[in-house]
């Protein structure tokens, strides 16, 4: 469903992605991990066209992201994205956050959108927070609202960029639980995370990046069994110590 093919990207002189290729099939969950600054965020932002790339191709459901003819807003409306720092809209209530894309992009009636939003809030366990503003919620609650906001668009795939790394430890699980459930329902997901427990539990494959390169791209079992590269090994031993 998502195919990344020989992608190269530069920020001015600095090459942030080097010949990256991988693919994600429908219903597959792929975890991307790697040291900070290795290009993980940049790579998934290329998938929904938030970052342009100079070489290579990325297709989502057959649509080429880098093609100038591609209607990016239309494409993005089918791909949910969840950010490290939640990025809820602070001037809107929870309900308005979840409703905005539904009404302005999908053209749903406000009443229909609200009904859908409430359903999603129920799913992430936050019905009683509907009329609050994001600043009144805990980090874990905000991230669950952000997931609901993305799901409201009925996405064909979801991108997560370190969804739990800005959270206090006691809130990490409430977010991971929602993600595990999504994965088990068959959602296609790319998840940048260092939560190896999550990876073991639901990931079909693990991609390891370092310095802009995809160094390892393996089934989850193989990755945790014996990572082939030294870099992945030393990375794993560092984060598994915690």
């Amino acid at each position: 469903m998502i195919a990344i093919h020989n992608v190269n990207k530069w920020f001015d002189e600095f090459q942030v992605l080097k010949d990256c290729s991988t693919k994600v099939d429908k219903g597959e969950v792929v975890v991307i991990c790697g040291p900070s600054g290795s290009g993980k965020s940049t790579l998934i932002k290329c998938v929904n066209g938030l970052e342009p790339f100079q070489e290579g191709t990325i297709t989502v459901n057959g649509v080429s992201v880098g093609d100038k003819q591609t209607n990016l807003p239309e494409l993005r409306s089918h791909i949910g994205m969840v950010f490290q720092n939640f990025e809820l809209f602070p001037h809107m209530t929870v309900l308005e956050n979840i409703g905005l894309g539904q009404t302005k992009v999908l053209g749903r009636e406000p009443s229909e959108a609200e009904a859908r939003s409430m359903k999603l809030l129920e799913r992430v366990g936050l019905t009683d927070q509907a009329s609050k503003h994001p600043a009144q919620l805990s980090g874990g609650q905000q991230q669950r609202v952000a997931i609901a906001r993305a799901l409201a668009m009925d996405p064909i795939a979801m991108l997560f960029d370190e969804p739990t790394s800005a959270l206090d430890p006691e809130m990490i699980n409430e977010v991971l639980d929602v993600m595990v459930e999504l994965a088990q329902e068959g959602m296609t997901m790319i998840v940048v995370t260092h939560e190896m427990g999550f990876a073991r539990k639901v990931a079909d494959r693990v991609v390891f990046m370092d310095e802009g390169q995809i160094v390892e791209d393996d089934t989850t079992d193989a990755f945790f069994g014996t990572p082939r590269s030294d870099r992945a090994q030393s990375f794993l031993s560092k984060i598994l110590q915690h």
Partner: protein
Amino acid sequence: MFEQFDFHVIINAMPILWDGMLITLLLAVVAIVGGIVIGTVLALMRLSRFTPFSLVAGSYVNFFRSMPLILVIFWFYFLVPMATGQALGGLSSVLIAFTLFEAAYYCEIIRAGIQSVTRNQINAGLAVGLSYPQTMRYIVLPQAFRNMVPVFLTQAIVLFQDTSLVYVVGLKDFLTAADLVAVRDNRVVELFITAAVVYLAICLAGSLWVKKLQRKYAL
């Protein structure tokens, strides 16, 4: 000097002062509203990646910010009629001059406000499928304006006080009216104290109103 403070002087001067206040308010409201509208367009142009837009807006801002307001008023009052052969009249001249002048300052305030909204917020808007203009409208501008409210207030107060410049084209704003009566009736104490009290009251009311707005919309 205060024991002779005569309230009758003020009561008698009310109609003139009120007429002056109407000019002051008209000018302030038109210049603030017009300045914000044009300033928003200029700010979006200035931030645009389309170079001709940003160049035009940038030159506009730099130009008006180097000019004293009084000179801008003079142009519209004296020079534009010479160029077009048609006099604008005092009121139209100052309304246009103030609005165009304020727009340059509002542009910079709004630009800073827009830039205070993070790239990630824009990405979050784009990621749900909003177009760039929609992201501006629903995500960036509301937050930008909210961040700008205190600066807007300061700018409005300065503008409110600057309206007294209209005396140069023969208009009587509130302060000019007070000055006229003070000299005419030889009642400087009464009139100037009254003027100060009125300015103070209006600015205070403005500040309180903005505080209330901020409480209502603050998060």
